[in-house]
């Protein structure tokens, strides 16, 4: 019945975890497609001044051109005769800049707070957990509106505002990781060697806590882009820059007659955010092979 060819597979050769994760990531087709799409969006954002040297806020043709009506303006024109395609290209800059910068700032704050709380424990932990709780109890988008409105809407204030409402997520995560990692043998060993707290936190523990932070970071970029677009939609975007959200806000005025003005920039947001979330999922699978293989 049983044959000699049916065998338990050989143990996998030990290989570097990072490489294995990268390979797992690249084997996931949706992750590759999503990454390629993001590369494309990034290139477009960088090359915006070359593709559309004109100010995207200037009027270039007659208003209300539907997409496909005039090959020179493939996505049509808005109520004031501005080129929708140009707006889309320039808008990608705002989305990406704010998304990435807010994530970087939020993750940095979150790591510092979470690491301090998780590593030191005790009173510091109690106080920081309370702080995180206060931030998480206030509806974050409401808080964001208040922050941005108070500081006057500009790219910088929007970025800082988004970072201020996202760091608690990272802080919770990092705190949990640090609490479990600080009990590990290698940390005890590092203490025994007389390393300072900073060294233990950043050189010994942090690299081990990185995988979940990386996964969450990609999702945070996505949610930062969503938040920026919602702010811009409500008229709290940077008034001097065109953004996907502000295009939707402007398009809303003519929703009944020219709904494409709302639809087109929305699709751009959805695709970008979808790509980021797909990458987040794929990273999660690649960095936690145990969890994904069970499924």
């Amino acid at each position, binding site marked *: 019945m049983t044959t000699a060819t049916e065998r338990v597979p050989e143990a996998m050769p030990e290989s570097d975890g990072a490489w294995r994760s990268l390979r797992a990531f690249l084997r996931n087709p949706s992750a590759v497609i999503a990454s390629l799409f993001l590369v494309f969006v990034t290139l477009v954002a960088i090359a915006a001044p070359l593709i559309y040297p004109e100010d995207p806020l200037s009027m270039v043709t007659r208003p209300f051109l539907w997409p496909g009506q005039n090959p020179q303006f493939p996505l049509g024109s808005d109520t004031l005769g501005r080129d929708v395609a140009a707006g889309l290209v320039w808008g990608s800059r705002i989305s990406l800049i704010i998304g990435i910068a807010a994530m970087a700032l939020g993750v940095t704050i979150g790591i510092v707070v979470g690491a301090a709380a998780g590593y030191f424990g005790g009173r510091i932990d109690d106080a920081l957990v309370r702080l995180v709780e206060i931030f998480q109890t206030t509806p974050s988008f409401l808080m964001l509106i208040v922050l941005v409105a*108070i500081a006057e809407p500009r790219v910088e204030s929007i970025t800082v505002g988004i970072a201020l409402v996202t760091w608690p997520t990272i802080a919770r995560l990092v705190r949990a990781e640090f609490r479990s990692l600080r009990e590990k043998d290698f940390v005890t060993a590092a203490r025994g060697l007389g390393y300072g707290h900073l060294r233990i936190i950043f050189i010994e523990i942090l690299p081990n806590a990185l995988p979940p932070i990386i996964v969450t970071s990609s999702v945070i970029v996505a949610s930062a882009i969503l938040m920026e677009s919602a702010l811009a939609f409500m008229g709290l975007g940077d008034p001097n820059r065109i953004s996907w959200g502000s295009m*939707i806000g402007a398009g809303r005025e003519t*929703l009944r007659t020219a709904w494409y003005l709302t639809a087109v920039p929305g699709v751009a947001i*959805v695709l970008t955010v979808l790509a980021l979330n797909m990458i987040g*999922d794929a990273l999660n699978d690649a960095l936690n092979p145990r969890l994904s293989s069970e499924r």
Partner: protein
Amino acid sequence: MLENRRLLRVLRRTVLQAVPTILGIIILNFLLLKLAPGDAADVMAGEFGAATEETMAMLRQRFGLDVPVLQQLLAYLSNLAQFSLGQSPRYGVPVSELIGQRLPSTLMLMVMALAIAFGLGIALGTAMALTAGRWPDRVLSLVSLFFYSVPGFWIGLMLIVLFSVKLNWLPSGGQETIGAGLTGLDYALDRLKHMILPATSLALFYVAIYGRLTRAAVLEVSSQDYVRTAAAKGLPPLAITLRHVIRNALLPVTTLAGIHLGGILGGAVVIETVYSWPGLGRLAFESVTRRDFNVLLGVLLLSSFLVIIANTLVDLLHAWLDPRVEVR
């Protein structure tokens, strides 16, 4: 009896923990708003045209804006202790009155959105888990990832285009047909019709979140020994799923539900703008642009308070679902 006493202990613990959080929120929000350049006097003066230094000073004195910040904070706290949120300098009415007018609309919207998010999310997640790895799971996973990636305000606008403009099935905004003079059941139906689109737009993101959470939880629970025990009893698959799997899978889902309540309230601000829904979110947004900080502070406090109450309810629900929850 014993069960009720356990739930009471859980309730007391949650309430005690909430007190310092609430105090922190009050102080933080108060100071934050004081950082803002400009106050209600500035905006009002700007709107009335030229204003002399004297009128400005008079306005500030009337609103209590001329004393040091710390004193203002103490005044505010003592007001709060008497359950007063202060006056709106702008409208000259108590803040609580303004909020009271808007609160029911927002609460209804939230409850409806939560119900959709929970019901649809759990159904979606269970369906995905039961077909894990096969095509229904893949398709539904993609759908939920899509819901997770769509801005709520945009899907709201698209739903208006489809259901109000093109199909003319549902109203595009407001919370009731104004001047229709409907009563009874007709009125209720009219309100419901107005709520479907905004609640759906608000819920979709959370449908995705609860769907994904439920999927993971159901998969996790399905591999537990007690599920095998249930199968060994001869229970049919549906009974196993309903009685043994979902009940346990709900535990992690409800715990995390609390975290997202603040998010739903925040999302309501945008959705209320899209659908001209006369709720708290609109009020908050209007008071930001008008620098009507007493109203804004009231809304912020109330929404934090709502989140805390909702979290307490979630804690109780969790304790009721999971007999192992005890006071430490």
